[in-house]
């Protein structure tokens, strides 16, 4: 390709991209207008002003998560729980109470693979209460840890597993697929109860001492911020110190070298479930947007219609999904069969449809509509202050600018039917995948 032609191609692409973004993206960057700076102690601060309502979303991320557990699987998650159990100054039980009393909403935390985020939404006139509480537990959790609180949160974390996995209808099937793709020792491996039970208080203290400090944290405040917000942050977080960012472990998925099928029975199921999964490109990596476009296009009726035409009455419901994670994602299909039927015909029906998909790429109009929908969905994810704070944290965690929204929209704009076909060809091979076939237990309801 000559230089001139390449330049022409680039300009055409750019023009198309601008046309597509059009009004949808025209205001997108300004939606995440912000000021970002680093305090002397290393605390990364992002301030986003939005005066629609007198509310502020507070999101404090420590850049340490489940993939940094190393030889102590489950530790990051247990520490996340411990952060709500009080300090020397805030007795056990008072943290949540004080937030409720201040009117806080959506108070919670989540342990991702690469970060642990604590978040709440607070009336603007109660912001100081949250800043002080966050500052207090940043500095004083470790000293307040006792064997009793640690032990009780071990129990709670294990119970969370029981709630989420053992007693949820399809969770064990998903877990089975996940554990084949990310086997023991992989940073994405989920800590099972017997492993969590082996953690001890010293593990927790060491983890907090190493990683819970301002130099390993990003604080995002979004909403009706006071003019002197910088002074307030200095007052509450200025005296804090410490925090080391852990090194990033290798995240390559296990190589799936064949068409691996696993059969299992489930007590809670009343219909058969088939999961088919592949390792796929990580969040924001090349191929991630094509995977989203593929999943959306298939879910918009195309896949269900294809299956119904080829295998009438076999599949009750089917979904395709790119489960995006930093560096390494999973693309999977979940297909539910009709009641009292075995799962094998469901897999056959799904395979027949996928064979057709490999032969005939998606329609260009379908892809265009999917892109448009994903653009709208990106804006839908920025309606609320807590959503904005979470999106900013996600971008920062991936090494992007806090207002990377236009680039985020543009990566979808660059996906066409050829890119989707390439994704299918490269990442969804029929002979290298994991299929989990779940049958309802005989006599199920």
């Amino acid at each position, binding site marked *: 390709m000559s230089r001139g032609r390449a330049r022409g191609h680039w300009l055409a692409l750019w023009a198309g991209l601008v046309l597509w973004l059009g009004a949808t993206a025209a205001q997108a960057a300004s*939606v995440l207008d912000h000021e970002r700076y680093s305090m002397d102690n290393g605390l990364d601060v992002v301030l986003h002003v939005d005066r629609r309502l007198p509310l502020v979303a507070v999101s404090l991320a420590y850049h340490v998560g489940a993939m940094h557990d190393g030889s102590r699987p489950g530790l990051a998650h247990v520490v996340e729980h411990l952060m709500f159990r009080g300090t020397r100054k805030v007795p056990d039980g008072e943290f949540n109470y004080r937030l409720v009393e201040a009117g806080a909403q959506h108070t919670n935390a989540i342990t991702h693979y690469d970060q642990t985020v604590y978040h709440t*939404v607070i009336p603007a006139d109660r912001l100081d209460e949250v800043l002080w509480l966050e500052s207090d537990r940043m500095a004083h959790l470790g000293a307040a840890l006792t064997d009793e609180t640690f032990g009780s949160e071990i129990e709670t974390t294990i119970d969370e597993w029981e709630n989420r996995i053992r007693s949820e209808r399809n969770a064990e099937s998903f877990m089975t697929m996940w554990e084949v793709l990310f086997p023991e020792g992989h940073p994405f491996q989920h800590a099972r109860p017997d492993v969590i039970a082996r953690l001890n208080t010293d593990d927790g203290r060491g983890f907090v001492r190493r990683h819970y400090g301002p130099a390993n944290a990003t604080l995002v405040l979004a909403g009706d911020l006071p003019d002197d917000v910088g002074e307030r942050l200095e*007052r509450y977080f200025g005296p804090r110190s410490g925090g080391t960012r852990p090194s990033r472990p290798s995240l390559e998925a296990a190589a799936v070298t064949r068409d691996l099928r696993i059969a299992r029975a489930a*007590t809670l199921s009343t219909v058969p479930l088939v999961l088919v999964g592949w390792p796929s490109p990580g969040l924001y990596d090349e191929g991630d947007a094509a995977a989203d476009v593929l999943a959306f296009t298939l879910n918009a009726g195309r896949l269900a219609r294809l299956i119904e035409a080829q295998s009438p009455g076999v599949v009750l419901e089917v979904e395709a999904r790119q489960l995006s994670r930093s560096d390494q994602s999973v693309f999977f299909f979940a297909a539910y069969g009709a009641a009292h039927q075995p799962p094998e015909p469901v897999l056959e029906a799904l395979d027949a449809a996928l064979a057709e998909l490999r032969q005939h790429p998606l329609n260009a109009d379908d892809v265009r509509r999917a892109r448009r929908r994903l653009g709208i969905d990106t804006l839908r994810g920025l309606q609320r202050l807590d959503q904005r704070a979470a999106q900013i944290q996600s971008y920062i965690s991936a090494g992007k600018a806090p207002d990377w929204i236009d680039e985020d929209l543009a990566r979808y704009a660059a996906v066409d039917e050829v890119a989707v076909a390439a994704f299918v060809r490269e990442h969804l091979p029929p002979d290298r995948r994991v299929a989990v076939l779940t049958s*309802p237990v005989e006599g199920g309801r």
Partner: protein
Amino acid sequence: MILDRRRFLASVGATSLVGCAGREPPAPARRTGPPHVELPPVLSQSSAGGSRTFVVEDHGVPLVSMAIVTGGGHVLEAAEHKGLASLSAALLLEGMDGGDRVQQLERYGEFGTTPDISVSAQHTFVYCTVHRDDAPAALRLLTDTLHRATVAEGDFERIRHKRRDTLALLRGAPDRIASLGIVLGTLGTTPPISELSLGTDASLTSLTMDQVRAWYAQQFRLEGTTFILAGDLRMDEGQAWVDAAAQRWPSAAGPRGGVAVSSTPNSNIPHNVLIPWPDIPQGIVAYGGLHAPWGDPREPAQTVARALVGSFMHHELRTVLRTSYGVQDSELYTTRGSVRLQWAKLENADVATAVQRLRERLERLQSELMLNEVGVDATRFSMMVGMMDDFHGPEAAMVQLLELADADLPPQTFALRLKALRELDADIVTDALRGLYDPQTLGLSVVADPDALDAVRETLPVNSSITRQPQDMLGAPA
């Protein structure tokens, strides 16, 4: 989590003292009054033809969420046609103007959206979210969706079949089975499936396409319809969009049809419903009953009371029994009103203990003044801020307006509810709590392993419970 005043004040003292030390950041002074709460104005306008428009402006993102709330609630179904409203609504999204579902989705797809539909006791809603530039055209498409359904025979049979499969799926959902146990224990209906808008295998089998078409003609009238718009628009432009869309509405012919079912709860059956589920990994304990609806003056106090009881039980279950998710809230819209329940998953071995603690706690609340101003204040403040937070963004605001339209309430309802929350005190909430959570009348539903249920039975008064099999709660499979 609710604490007493002594502990509350002690913590204030402790934090004040620590605040004086070294470079340690000072604790902010504890604020005792309600936080500053503002609600965006709800704009309303009536139109020729008997419709009305609700608008909330939110210019945070260039999106508009829109909904049309019209007739066709499942309360209007004839007893032998259970599931008609829900099935008819589902068919609205199976194709329009003679086209099929995919073609319909493609038309919405041009706006980057997909339509959603739901059915309440009183209404059918259809709604979506689009870029503001597409809003007028999208509202016209939404209007056409209500009136130009294809209703092809193949789609009718497929959707009917899928709904039977959904019933089969629900048979494997212990939380839903537990919810129906609450309906049975509260309303005394046998089987409680009569309260479920999905219908039964038998009623679904009896439905015909002609009944669906007749339902559309009878129920989807412009008169009484509410158009809802929330997001990046002004009232005047929103009304213009609505006027253009309303012109496409076909004129009504014949009577509206449908008679709302109204009956009183049957208080003669036991309120405790035990549902054995062999080998279930974790049991479910649920409790609840009828709740005052939105706009009812009793509702704010009842909602605060429900939140407080949820906190008490969350504390009992999370701290004492280590149930990590504690208590969750659910609501079921029945032909006899809204049933609110709280439920928790527990190890089978802990189920009887949880039931016993629940009953003990509720009995104490009947006989002692347990609520204090501090706990009530914290709860109502949180609810006040929650009301503000519920208006955050076009989609959230649309949901609030849907509630308003569904209950046929005026726009000032939000402000009145906020005022009521400002004025609540512990005595009012205590009275509400005692009325709602009387252990003699409260519905209790337990899904658990049979051995665990034997232990539960021992904690209950003699002859105060009935046992039902899970499959009985959803009607017999066809």
